[in-house]
């Protein structure tokens, strides 16, 4: 079943994940529609990465249902997941770049290994170059991940995530461990990716500022930089999900988040802001 403009790209229905006797996700439900952005906030170890990996089919839920591109994928086989993952771009928390491969090989990896994305050599080289230019790292083709700084590796990760021009982009803690200037650069690239490609974006973070930037700024293709989003709410819709010990404690807009009376949520916003 093809997803229509308004149908959810990704939806969780009471999803629970357990590891031995530990509960990582406990009855998590949310919906994200095409073109929307979701900011997933929460303290370390609250289940943010587990949620993202469940959405990617890397972890199977113990209970509940997962819907992706309008289909119930809870019981999808690994082979079916390979097809679905071709439509998703992902940036892992640890980068997930292959140490033994050059930057060019890393970025071209999904184009070479996803049967549905294979393209002629010339076109592939062009797409890889374009993707690396997008993150302003066009000069690093021959280098290896170990030769790059942490921020540059994260940018290569973004280039690899967008090279397939996916419908859904998942970013796991893209700014974790980076200095504020590099973190802002990374967020600007994520916003650019969202606005230029109109991709549905899920970003996992423990920094409130990342979500704030995603809500308040948009990429102006004319100026080639970020500009404040219009006050009338035009542009991509962003909503927030706050996790605590595997449970959703908040699901709503930024205004509702800032007005929340929940001490955990309020403290989170105050501490990060």
């Amino acid at each position, binding site marked *: 079943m093809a997803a229509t403009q308004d149908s959810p790209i990704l939806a969780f229905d009471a999803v629970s994940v357990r590891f031995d006797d530990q509960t990582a996700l406990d009855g998590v439900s949310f919906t994200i529609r095409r073109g929307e952005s979701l900011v997933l906030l929460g303290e370390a170890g609250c289940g943010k990465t587990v949620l993202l990996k469940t959405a990617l089919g890397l972890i199977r839920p113990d209970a509940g249902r997962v819907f992706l591109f309008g289909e119930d994928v809870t019981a999808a086989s690994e082979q079916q997941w390979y097809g679905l*993952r071709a439509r998703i771009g992902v940036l892992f*928390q*640890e980068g*997930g770049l*292959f140490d033994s491969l050059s930057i060019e090989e890393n970025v071209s990896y999904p184009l070479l290994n*996803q049967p549905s994305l294979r393209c002629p050599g010339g076109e592939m080289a062009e797409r890889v170059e374009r993707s690396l230019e997008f993150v302003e790292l066009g000069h690093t083709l021959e280098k290896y991940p170990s030769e790059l700084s942490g921020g540059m590796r994260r940018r290569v990760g973004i280039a*690899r995530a967008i090279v397939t021009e996916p419908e859904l982009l998942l970013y796991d803690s893209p700014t974790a461990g980076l200095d504020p200037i590099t973190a802002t650069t990374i967020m600007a690239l994520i916003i650019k990716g969202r606005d230029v490609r109109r991709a549905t974006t899920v970003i996992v973070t423990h920094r409130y500022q990342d979500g704030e930037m995603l809500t308040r700024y948009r990429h102006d293709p004319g100026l080639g930089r970020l500009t404040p989003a219009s006050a009338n709410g035009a542009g991509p819709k962003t909503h927030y999900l706050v996790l605590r010990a595997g449970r959703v404690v908040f699901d709503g807009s930024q205004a509702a988040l800032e007005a929340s009376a929940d001490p955990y949520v309020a403290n989170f916003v105050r501490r990060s802001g």
Partner: protein
Amino acid sequence: MLDLIKGPILTFQEFVLLAGRAVRGVFRKPAYWTDVFTQMDLIGIGSLPVVILTGFFSGAIMSLQMSRALQTYGATSQVGQIVAITLVREMGPVLTALMVAGRNSSGIASELGSMKVTEQIDAMRALGTDPVMKLVKPRLIATATMLPLLTIIADFVGIFGGWVVACPLLGLTSDAQYWNNSWRSLEYNDIGQGLLKPFVFALVISLVGCHYGMRTTGGTQGVGRATTQAVVVASVWIVVLTFLIGRIFVSM
């Protein structure tokens, strides 16, 4: 009591499942031949110096130790026979496998463990590759091909090492008698178990390394733990399996 054995049984179950998927994968596409040849170079050519040294000195030591015992019975001419049979049946396969286990089970476990903790294995799955086909299968094929070849080399170098001690050094027997006895003492049964053992050990070395690498958790500390576990478990299995295979061949 049940809780105590639950862990090891679960680990063994995971190992058997991984082994099953890897062995099934050998007959399926994609083949990843480049990875297979890279691993053959790493495991086979890379282990050659240590295997040659171990083989040479195990043969030399055996000649040296046997010299006194054989002199007691006036049977020093039989030294070639003893060195050849012991090396081809037992010492060659076991020592080569232990060396390769120490070198490659640990190498595989640490490489795959590092990939696991830096999310490279997750990335592989997310980008359309089955890690069992891409990582486990090439290592399995490479080890299963190279270990029997390394064992043959170790056997030959070991018999040569035995000759160096027996003939030029101690003068226990003549050159012709040493080589003649070595060659004529070997039967098909000896060659059979001498080649079956390294093949079985290769499965153990590669799959144990991959198994511990791919279930690594707990950051860099976890990688160290996985590496140690892989070497210990592979070495113990080699010793246990050589007894079992030996038992089967002895009764044949």
